């Protein structure tokens, strides 16, 4: 008894891993083939799980009315979504249709759990050309049929406080990094800082460093999919990020401990900082009480002069994709549902509510999406956004680089100097841990 009790305590984490095999999720919907019931796992896009149910409920009712297909909705919080998907993949019992974070696309594609959207499947949901090119690039590894289609699109932009800029005598948002630094120093005053960062967040760090690395002409994986973490370009990208605290002193060192995922944005909304690099957030900013007239957004600046091989990338392709589980018993109904969710009217309604961007071209004709902010993000997504590396080790890459950058940022914040050679050795160590 003593041994098993001890084993139970000692193996808490191990049991977690094995629980994957032990438990299974709810099975695919039942019902006759004429009127099947689909199970749909929606990610948490609204302000709460209940809010999502309220938003999606009427839309799903519309779908049932049109097609006679019932949809059982389950909203899954982000903290559980990936685990649930992995569980469903392992047990072979999952939902029919589900949302995934688009950066997981290539990793999940490798599991072989999702239906590939080859040309014939794609034509059933209205064809490839309807989608925004940028969003479609984050649906799987290059050269393979995607295993998901984009549903909500997002991109990073440079949010700036128009009032602070006007007070400092700046009329235009910066378009290059030298301009950015000059402006940031002007708006860094005893009352507020220049730029806020979610420095303790693994994912925010890696997303920003990825964009900076693209601009330097760097890459974290070569064309053969081999990791190249410690190239000089990547070192330069990380240094640029750390220097916001270390050298330029435009960012409050306290930002290094921001790990909740919303603190940097809250600082911006409350006027504690003049700029923030963030995904489309007008809705959240208003909720946080920021005056809409003060909110300005522009693409993230570019290097000037452009380094050799540098790309004019100002954002990663962020967003949510829709995938169909291979084990579904109602393939046709599932594809009809995908078609419905990516249809122009639904794209308008859903993205308007969630404050994200439509992933299909036609939806942008709606007046709600012709505001300057939305137009800025649309142009970023279609022209200057690059997908995170579409390799199976993508989630490992995010964790390792994001954590390394977080630790270095903590060092810089505590007043230690992080040299190029230190950055290089940290990146090398991260690469060694890639297994």
């Amino acid at each position, binding site marked *: 008894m003593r041994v098993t009790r001890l084993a139970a305590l000692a193996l808490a*984490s191990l*049991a977690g891993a*094995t629980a994957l095999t032990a438990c299974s999720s709810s099975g695919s919907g039942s019902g006759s083939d004429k009127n099947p019931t689909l199970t749909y796992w929606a990610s948490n896009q609204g302000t709460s799980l209940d809010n999502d149910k309220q938003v999606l409920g009427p839309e799903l009712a519309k779908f049932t009315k049109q097609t006679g297909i019932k949809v059982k909705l389950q909203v899954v919080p982000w903290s559980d979504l990936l685990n649930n998907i992995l569980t469903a993949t*392992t047990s072979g019992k999952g939902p029919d249709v589900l949302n995934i974070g688009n950066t997981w696309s290539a990793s*999940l594609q*490798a599991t072989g759990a999702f239906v590939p959207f080859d040309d014939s499947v794609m034509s059933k949901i209205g064809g490839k050309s309807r989608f925004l090119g940028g969003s479609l690039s984050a649906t799987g590894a290059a050269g393979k049929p995607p295993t998901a289609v984009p549903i909500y699109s997002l991109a990073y932009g440079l949010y700036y406080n128009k009032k602070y800029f006007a007070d400092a005598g700046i009329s235009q948002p910066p378009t290059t990094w030298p301009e950015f630094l000059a402006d940031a120093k002007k708006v860094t005053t005893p009352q507020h800082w220049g730029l806020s960062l979610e420095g303790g*967040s693994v994912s925010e760090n890696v997303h920003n460093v990825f964009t900076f690395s693209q601009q330097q002409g760097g890459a974290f994986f070569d064309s053969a999919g081999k990791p190249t973490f410690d190239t000089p370009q990547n070192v330069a990208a990380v240094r640029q990020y750390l220097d916001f605290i270390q050298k330029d002193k435009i960012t409050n060192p306290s930002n290094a401990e921001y790990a909740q995922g919303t603190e940097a944005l809250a600082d911006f909304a409350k006027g504690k900082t003049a700029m923030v690099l963030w995904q489309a957030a007008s809705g959240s900013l208003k909720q946080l009480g920021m005056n809409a007239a003060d909110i300005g957004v522009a693409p993230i600046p570019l290097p000037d002069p452009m380094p050799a091989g540098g790309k004019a990338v100002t954002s990663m392709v962020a967003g949510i994709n829709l995938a169909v589980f291979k084990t579904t018993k109602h393939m046709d109904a599932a594809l009809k549902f995908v078609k419905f969710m990516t249809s122009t009217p639904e794209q308008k309604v859903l993205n308007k509510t969630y404050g994200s961007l439509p992933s299909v071209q036609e939806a942008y004709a709606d007046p709600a999406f012709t505001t300057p902010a939305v137009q800025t993000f649309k142009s970023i997504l279609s022209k200057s956004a690059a997908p995170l590396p579409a390799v199976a080790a993508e*989630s490992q890459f995010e964790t390792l680089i994001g954590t390394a950058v977080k630790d270095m940022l903590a060092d810089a914040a505590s007043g230690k100097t992080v040299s190029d050679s230190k950055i290089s050795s940290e990146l090398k160590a991260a690469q060694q841990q890639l297994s």
Partner: protein
Amino acid sequence: MVQLDTRTQPESAPLAPSKAARRRPRRHLLPYLLLIPAVLLELLIHIVPMLVGIGISFLHLTQFYIANWRDAPPAGFANYRYALDFHSAAGKELLHSFFVTVVFTVIVLVISWTLGMAAAVFTQRPFPGRGIVRTIFLIPYALPVFASVITWNFMLQRDNGAVNHVLVDQLHLATGDRPFWLIGQNSFYSLVLVEVWRTWPFAFLMLTAGMQSITQDLYEAAGLDGAGVWGQLRSVTLPMLRPVNRVLLLVLFLWTFNDFTTPFTLFGKGAPRQADLISMHIYQNSFVTWNFGTGSAMSVLLLLFLLVITGAYLRIANRGADDA
């Protein structure tokens, strides 16, 4: 069992032998029948997942194979070699995390036990308001982990946290910059602080319960022999609490060593390097990076280590008990 049989023997003797023979097997079977659900559940909940976990540690189980994990290629000891290669970054990190955890556990154990002991002795003799004091001491143990630890997170923040407000703004203790508590070297001490805050009430509770069984006579006898407060503590309280302490220290050790919720809530997904406890480290290496083989291998290594420690501890502790 033996006792039961000897006691029931005389009663069943007058019965006809054939009847007794028919009844005996049933009586023997019943306890085992009653045990079956417990044994099955034990197997299902503890043993089988454990064995599966050990099995997984010998597989290259990555996202390519989770859809059909029986097809995952065998890895032999590759996962173990990966974890234990202390010349590579991964091995070094695991070793570092292991040492952090050992130091952390020892510090937390010593402080929690000392605090718990002191408080238990302090509240041993009745005084007005003792119940209230005891209740207050137990509050941290009664609070939900997430709620209390996230409050610590707010309090330890550099700019707006209560800790820096008191230390820097009120007492002016900091020279130069405001200190960080959630990143850098201080994050380790923050974690120790929060963990002690959470665990010492349990030590207090166990020790208080243990002290209930010490009769006042012993203290009076010790007092007559000229023992002061320290003498009574040394010669009466501590020896009488030995069985409680034996279990308490082991349980506290295992809980602290394996604690996941506290660091995860305090630091978020990635703990600072200086406070990278082994449970978080393994989580990062299996769930977050989708490499269940290496994660399981690390867990098995951890299990072996804990088994060795526990085995050695129980041997020593039991030998001590026999001597006493």
